[in-house]
């Protein structure tokens, strides 16, 4: 039997886990849900919540809940979760651990390896952080593949005819566009471009600002400092965005946002799709510009494109379809589920790596140019930071290139090698991603040859080495997360820390596990009801408390009939409160 490698889409808003079983790709459901919201929280008991429950808790306890952690991956910052500071890698690890558990329950055996998708435009630091998150979660990340590529793989595996495809991937926090050629069972990425910080979250933020301005104008109150009210406004804004995907108008209503000088503040506002589309126009324009860049990178014109594949929940925004129609003259495809196809592609790639036969193989490219700086002529001037590109963008992965350089002055013993990512002829305008010294060079005249080798692996990660040609003296580094690198020990500590968080929860779950499914469901319902206490009226809250007491005593006494009755009543109240 092949070892199991799972495919994971670790998204800004939602995450999924998939696997290839008997030649079929399956997105694994947890409690009938294939989508796990990328929310992490700590509940009253100090237990960890992941997914829907954490998302629900966000409304009541935003300070104990973290969302959209992917936006912070690769940055050297910490987020606060219930009074403790965590690195973005650790929060992502919590989500990965949950997905791992979902997969383990499905296959009924331990899972230790995964293919994780990342935005094509994710930088080296962001990729490294993702790999670290996997390690903390107890998952060896055998490969990271790009999200639009994964989607193309999920869709392209079944294609017989040659097709050129544009993959437009707009998620919660990131935007990627790739031009892909599918032919003879090979999914070949021709070019990629994107933006690491553009997504549905930005659309939400526009609506949130609009609501806050409205409240400021009508009620004279600034809610920016009220975290609970802000959390509810955020949810209301997200809902309005979803409604506007299908409807021309959305009503935004939230009662009792808070009390202000003895009076209750309510929110009631109507937002039209036209106004909403005005708010997000700049963002959409930026995505269309990126489409043009990707097309240019692939040396193709719109007429060469046979199909458009939409990926990511944010592509449900109607004006995106419209804009793409205007550019290409035909409608984007909607056969593939934009929420699930990335995880499916990851599972296909995972199956490929574990040695299973698959329909399609993948050839991906780097969206970035990597190079170094040297003293050379730039704009007719001798300039010490002239950019020397070594691996050009849209080069197929893996790739390895060597360039020769010479020392600048006699007796030069040290060269400083700086690696940049970017396109600008002035290296200082590009992003510096790493630097090192080659010391102890021969005491010779200027012109000592130093070769520099850049190797970009299949994960899109860069390995650099420099060598003094005459002596073979070598220095090499892997560009890891230069800014927030976890030392090996620190990674272990993080692993223990996260395990401990789960440990508390797992003991509780072990008890629950032996119970009948009705009782498990009842307990879940109770947790849900408790999360709603803070937003329900006193009357509803009292009713819920009574029912919870009743349910608990029924469980103890084993009164199944009455248990069902009380559970149904509680479910009704929850339904009413949530809708």
């Amino acid at each position, binding site marked *: 039997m092949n070892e199991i490698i799972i495919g994971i889409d670790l998204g800004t808003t939602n995450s999924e886990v998939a696997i290839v079983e008997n030649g079929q790709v399956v997105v694994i459901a947890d409690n009938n849900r294939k989508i796990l919201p990328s929310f992490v929280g700590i509940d009253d008991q100090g237990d960890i919540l992941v997914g829907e429950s954490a998302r629900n808790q966000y409304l009541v306890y935003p300070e104990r809940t973290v969302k959209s952690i992917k936006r912070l991956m690769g940055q050297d910052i910490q987020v606060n979760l219930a009074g403790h500071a965590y690195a973005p890698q650790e929060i992502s690890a919590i989500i990965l651990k949950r997905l791992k558990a979902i997969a383990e329950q499905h296959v009924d055996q331990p899972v230790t390896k995964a293919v994780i998708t990342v935005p094509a435009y994710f930088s080296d630091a962001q990729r490294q952080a993702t790999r670290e998150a996997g390690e903390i979660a107890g998952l060896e990340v055998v490969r990271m593949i790009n999200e639009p590529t994964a989607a193309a793989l999920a869709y392209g595996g079944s294609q017989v005819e040659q097709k050129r495809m544009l993959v437009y991937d707009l998620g919660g926090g990131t935007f990627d566009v790739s031009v892909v050629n599918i032919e003879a069972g090979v999914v070949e990425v021709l070019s990629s471009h994107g933006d690491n910080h553009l997504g549905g979250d930005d659309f939400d933020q526009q609506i949130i600002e609009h609501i806050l301005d409205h409240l400021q104008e009508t009620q004279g109150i600034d809610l920016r400092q009220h975290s609970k009210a802000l959390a509810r406004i955020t949810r209301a804004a997200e809902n309005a965005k979803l409604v506007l995907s299908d409807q021309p108008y959305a009503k935004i209503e939230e009662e009792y946002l808070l009390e202000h000088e003895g009076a209750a503040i309510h929110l009631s506002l109507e937002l039209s799709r036209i106004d909403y589309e005005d708010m997000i126009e700049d963002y959409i324009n930026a995505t269309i510009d990126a489409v043009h860049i990707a097309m240019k990178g692939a040396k193709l014109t719109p007429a060469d494109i046979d199909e458009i594949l939409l990926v990511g929940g944010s592509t449900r925004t109607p004006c995106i379809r419209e804009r793409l129609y205007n550019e290409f003259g035909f409608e984007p495809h909607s056969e593939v589920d934009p929420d699930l196809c990335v995880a499916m592609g990851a599972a296909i*790639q995972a199956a490929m790596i574990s040695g299973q036969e698959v329909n399609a193989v*993948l050839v991906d490219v780097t969206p970035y140019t990597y190079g170094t700086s040297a003293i050379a002529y730039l704009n007719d001037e001798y300039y010490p930071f002239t950019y020397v590109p070594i691996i050009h963008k849209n080069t197929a992965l893996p790739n390895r290139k060597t360039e020769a350089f010479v020392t600048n002055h006699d007796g030069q013993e040290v060269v400083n090698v700086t690696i940049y990512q970017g396109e600008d002829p002035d290296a200082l305008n590009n992003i510096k991603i790493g630097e090192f010294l080659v010391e102890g060079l021969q005491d010779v005249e200027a012109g000592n040859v130093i070769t520099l080798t850049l190797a970009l*692996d299949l994960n899109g990660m860069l390995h650099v080495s420099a060598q003094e040609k005459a002596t073979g003296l070598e220095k090499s580094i892997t560009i890891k997360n230069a800014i927030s690198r976890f030392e090996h020990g620190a990674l272990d500590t993080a692993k223990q820390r996260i395990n401990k968080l789960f440990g508390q929860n797992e003991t509780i779950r072990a008890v629950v596990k032996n119970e009948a499914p009705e009782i498990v469901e009842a307990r879940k319902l109770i947790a849900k009801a408790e999360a709603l206490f803070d937003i329900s009226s006193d009357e509803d809250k009292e009713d819920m408390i009574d029912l919870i007491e009743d349910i608990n005593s029924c469980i103890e006494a084993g009164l199944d009939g009455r248990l069902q009755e009380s559970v149904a009543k509680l479910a009704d109240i929850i339904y009413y409160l949530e809708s």
Partner: protein
Amino acid sequence: MKSPYEILEVAEQATDSEIKQAYLQKVKLNPPDRDHEKFQQIHSAYESIKNVTSRENHALFNYPEADFDALLEQAFSTAQPSLISADHFDKLLRASIDDKTFLIGNPKMTTA
């Protein structure tokens, strides 16, 4: 050292599309995930002969087993650098510029 034609197992007269098909077939059998080196060899073979421009470039500049030092030595020791034949020079020129740009030589387009 195998030539790109040998690596892809195509004739030197093969068309663009024959070369492309041979490349895809090789990739399908040797995905980048299974054997990096093999894939890179196949891919760079394809890059060097995928169209007429790259084939001309390959024909002109590809010295088998180019040795940096030997070439440097040769350049310094040869008083008279070896001349490129007129035919080669023409090919080189054609290879380096886009076919459309080359039409500037057409009298119709050189009215100014």
